[in-house]
């Protein structure tokens, strides 16, 4: 499948924002299959989850697009039950942090039902949630909890980094017969990419090579794929070639594409949008080490949230996340172990920074 960073997909001259791609995907699937419905706090208000549910209520009515009480735990059970009964619920959470209220239903029931009942039931549901960042989101509105879901068999975990994948993954997630944890990022919402108007799916378990380069393999998860893209631009100045991979889906994970790349570069930097400890970066680094470590020296490094709680003040939050400069510095140090340390020109780096989010929201 062609990528928004590669040649535009056939007939995809149209640029669309990530947020609009999500809304379009859901609308098209609701049109196609009347068992699909959308619910969750605020999906039907005028803000429409920052626009990602825009137009759905008007088009499909309150029986298929409705808000809920503040009862995330039970509402997740309701989604599971409706899915078992043959419907295809999309349960929306405005922050991924709130999934912590739903863990019992997601882990003990959704992930296990198909297996625990010997295949007698399926749970075709999508749990959408958004990761927040900046403007004082802080400890409880900024978490990327995907590794918790990756840990448990039975859940699929998806983290599109651009509008094209957002639409394709959402359609694939809705059509999937398993519970899918659909992870979005607030700062990706305004980003544009060429997005075909006709429905299409992005196949789960196929990573995308965003850049080809021979010096180092960099894997970026969710919006970190975009930060890595910016870091790679900075690294061009010093002729460090980055093989940049966006896994797109974390379960299933296309480890082969990553291993093939590292087999060439023997250097792997994984940049995740979460903590490192037992995170997706640990899994990717481990699998690569298991498969390639025996055959010779292998440089592996992980970057992610600082090993702290997320602070609200910009003065500290700035240092909590990897950014294009710190990613570029780390990659350079790995690619040029002998050489002196290098930091990108602050001016270029500034331009490369992800646009700061401005509240309130």
């Amino acid at each position, binding site marked *: 499948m062609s990528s928004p960073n590669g040649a535009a997909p056939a007939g995809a001259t149209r640029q669309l924002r990530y947020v609009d791609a999500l809304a379009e995907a859901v609308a098209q699937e609701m049109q196609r299959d009347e068992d699909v419905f959308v619910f969750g706090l605020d999906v039907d208000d005028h803000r429409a989850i920052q626009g990602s549910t825009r137009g759905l209520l008007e088009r499909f009515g309150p029986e298929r697009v409705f808000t809920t009480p503040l*009862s995330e*735990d*039970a509402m997740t*059970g309701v989604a599971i039950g*409706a899915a078992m009964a043959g419907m295809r619920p999309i349960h929306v959470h405005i922050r991924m942090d709130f999934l912590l209220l739903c863990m019992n239903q997601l882990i003990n029931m959704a992930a296990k039902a198909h297996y*625990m009942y*010997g295949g007698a039931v399926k749970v075709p549901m999508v749990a959408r949630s958004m990761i927040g960042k900046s403007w004082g989101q802080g400890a409880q509105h900024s978490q990327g909890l995907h590794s918790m879901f990756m840990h448990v068999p039975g859940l699929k975990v998806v983290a599109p980094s651009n509008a094209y994948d957002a639409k394709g993954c959402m359609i694939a997630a809705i059509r999937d017969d398993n519970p899918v944890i659909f992870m979005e990022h607030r700062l990706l919402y305004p980003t544009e990419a060429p997005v075909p108007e006709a429905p299409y799916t992005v196949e789960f378990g196929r990573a995308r090579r965003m850049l080809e380069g021979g010096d180092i393999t960099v894997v970026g998860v969710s919006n970190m794929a975009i930060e890595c893209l910016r870091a790679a631009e900075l690294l061009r100045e010093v002729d460090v070639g980055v093989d940049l991979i966006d896994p797109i889906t974390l379960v299933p994970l296309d480890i082969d594409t990553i291993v093939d790349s590292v087999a060439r570069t023997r250097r792997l930097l994984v940049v995740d949008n979460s903590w490192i400890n037992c995170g997706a970066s640990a899994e990717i680094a481990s699998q690569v080490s298991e498969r390639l470590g025996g055959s010779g020296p292998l440089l592996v490094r992980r970057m992610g949230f600082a090993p702290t709680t997320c602070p609200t003040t910009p003065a500290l939050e700035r240092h909590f996340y990897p950014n294009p400069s710190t990613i570029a510095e780390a990659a350079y140090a790995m690619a040029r172990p002998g050489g002196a340390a290098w930091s990108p020109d602050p001016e270029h780096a500034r331009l490369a920074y992800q646009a700061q989010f401005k509240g309130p929201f």
Partner: protein
Amino acid sequence: MPSEYTQETIARLYRSLYFIRRFEERVAAIYPSDAIKSPVHLSIGQEFISVAVCDILRADDVVSGTYRGHAAYLAKGGDPKAMMAEMYGKATGCSAGRGGSMHLIDANANVMGASAVVGTTIPIAAGYALAMKRRKTDRIVAAFFGDGASEEGCFYETLNFAALHKLPILFVCENNFYAIHEPQSKRWATDRFCERVATFGIETRRITSGDLFELRDAVAGMVEKLRRGEGPALIECHAYRWREHVGPNEDFDQGYRPRAEAERWMEMDQVPHLAAMLPEAERAAIEAEAEAAIDAAVAFAEQSPFPEAEELYRHVFA
């Protein structure tokens, strides 16, 4: 019992009641042999609740039971062979050997899967009910749960949502006064349970007699309204667990509850009560039929193969 109960109805109720009682007694008898390597939570003494409720339901209605769910599964028409095989951990079990006694399911009989995490199936049952309403059917869901389960927050969240959306769901609280060994006095601030549920705009009824017919009559009235789309209803039905929380034995020697407490309920036992209402010949026929079916279920379970090793990896994803 109300006069309008025909002998046919009584026979049907007794068939179910007797079958469940004897089925569980057989499980208890087999248990010491270790052929059943699964935690069994027997409903002996409480079966009348499942029998009364399920007798009112249609085949296309759905039942949601708990890990103490043998009675609900069988009363709703779940396959006894597949159930016994499941307890034996056989490939022919209703969950293909993956669930055991705590995770019974029978999709054909519209018996939802049970959970070993208390309370989790309550909102899931509401999700089924939501699907039925959206599909404009008049099918309903009966969700069974214990008094302890009602302490979980998801129970209240579900009541509010079900009432708000007028879902076709009958909540059935089997109040046996204990959660494992803990009496209600250590868990409930008050016993104004039905009064509380009613504040959600849910019709409630509390049955304390242990009388199967009184319960059935109450359910019949509620189910009619449920089919008319009048929204959820709840029944709190008192009952008593005769055996230990988990396992095949009595536990009055354990000191946490006196046998005296049980005696009133044993006297109320609905099995002999209904038996006495039937002509000897019919009763005997029903019982013989039940024993034969139980023998057949045990034989089926014993003769069925265990799943092959590679089965471990099946059904992780649909």
